[in-house]
């Protein structure tokens, strides 16, 4: 699975972190860091993370 976050849209709400903590994290300064090729077993979590992003900045490709 390939995950793309539009960092121009991202406003560091961190909601994705609650849904998929293995894929999305906020660093010490509150900025988003993420795994772009997570295991397919995490698909449900990542879909949920995409749903809850207030800026709808998360895209799942394939």
């Amino acid at each position: 699975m390939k995950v793309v976050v539009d960092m121009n849209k991202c406003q560091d709400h961190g909601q994705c972190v609650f849904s998929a903590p293995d894929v999305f994290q906020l660093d010490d300064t509150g900025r988003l860091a993420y795994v772009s090729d997570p295991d397919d077993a995490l698909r449900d979590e990542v879909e949920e993370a995409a749903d809850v992003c207030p800026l709808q900045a998360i895209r799942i490709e394939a």
Partner: protein
Amino acid sequence: MAETAHVPRSPGRVVVAGASMGGLRAAEQLRAAGWTGAITVIGDEPHMPYNRPPLSKDVLAGTASFESLAFTPRASAADVEWRLGTTVTSARLDERVVGLDDGTELAFDGLVVATGMRPRKLRCDGPSGPGSGRHTVRTLADARGLRDELTRPGVRVVVIGAGFIGCEVAATAKGLGVGEVTVVDPEPLPMLRPLGELLARSLHRRHEERGVRFALGAGVAGFEGEDRVTGVVLTDGTVLAADVVVESVGSVANTEWLDGNGLDLSDGVLTDEQLRVGGHPNVVAVGDVARFPNARYDGVPRRVEHWSIPTDSAKHAAKSLVAHLAGSVAQPAPFAPLPTFWSDQHEFRLQSFGAPALGIADVRVLDGHPEGDVLVGYHRDDRLVGVVALGGPAATTGAARYRAQLLARPALIS
């Protein structure tokens, strides 16, 4: 419940009324819950579902294009039928049909109510209607129209209502360079009821420091002007000169189409703890329009106009609806979402988790200071029921640390 399982006309149809966030999430979650029948979503706006929060922020400021707001539906929802520009005008729940404004009727096995809210408008003397300078902000068209007027040089803006949307619009207008922005509210401080005095004071000060004026403690008696508004008359006799007026005085649920079914529509549509409507297990409600009990708190049915609710409620409602349509008698656990809310105003953000309004009588600073980044806790019977952060990213990440704690607490009514 003595309920004969309804055998769907194979494989049946679910109609979703309302094509915004709640409607889209419901369609997606019906698929996720295993529904393989037809799904028809009916929406009166001409657009596919789009994100509303930027309408009072980035879209008004001109930093987000209208096009960038559209939600990307999940791949699993690719076969959903969208009927846009179509209004649901009636429903006969016992007969399982809805009526549409094109005169046709549509039969359903399951129905999702996702028709949301529309802005309340002040009914008092003075100009009204298109071109009058009076605005509300709910739709793309609203935001477009307001932006056009805010960007005219020298406009004087009066915002009526110091709630979340009113405060956001005032902040955005200031950011756009509008010289005169005044917020009117009968309460003594902005957002006093949802946030309590400590944060309301802090917000008030932050707005004033950035040039927003307030006329607090007075309501609106009427508008001056012939075809266009020239002033807002307050109940204390003050007249505020205005070229543009934004009314953000609450909202009204879009439920008229459900009239005649014996439902409780007194404030949105009343549901049970499975989001089922009025004793009809094949009818569920999601999003802003649903008035549901939250098992996490006191079980009192409330509508919750937070962005997180359409997604949370769609997930739960889809499960309960699909289980019913499949003839299952198993009941999911009651709906018990953790409400979350944010609001962006000027360069600071409010981030809320839990139900602060339930703990407004016992507010404590958990971290920071009301002058800067601050994190406050709301307590009921000495228990933390909500946290709200105000400030920059450090404050909002601080709030997130309490989220697990708020989630872990057993429900208040258990």
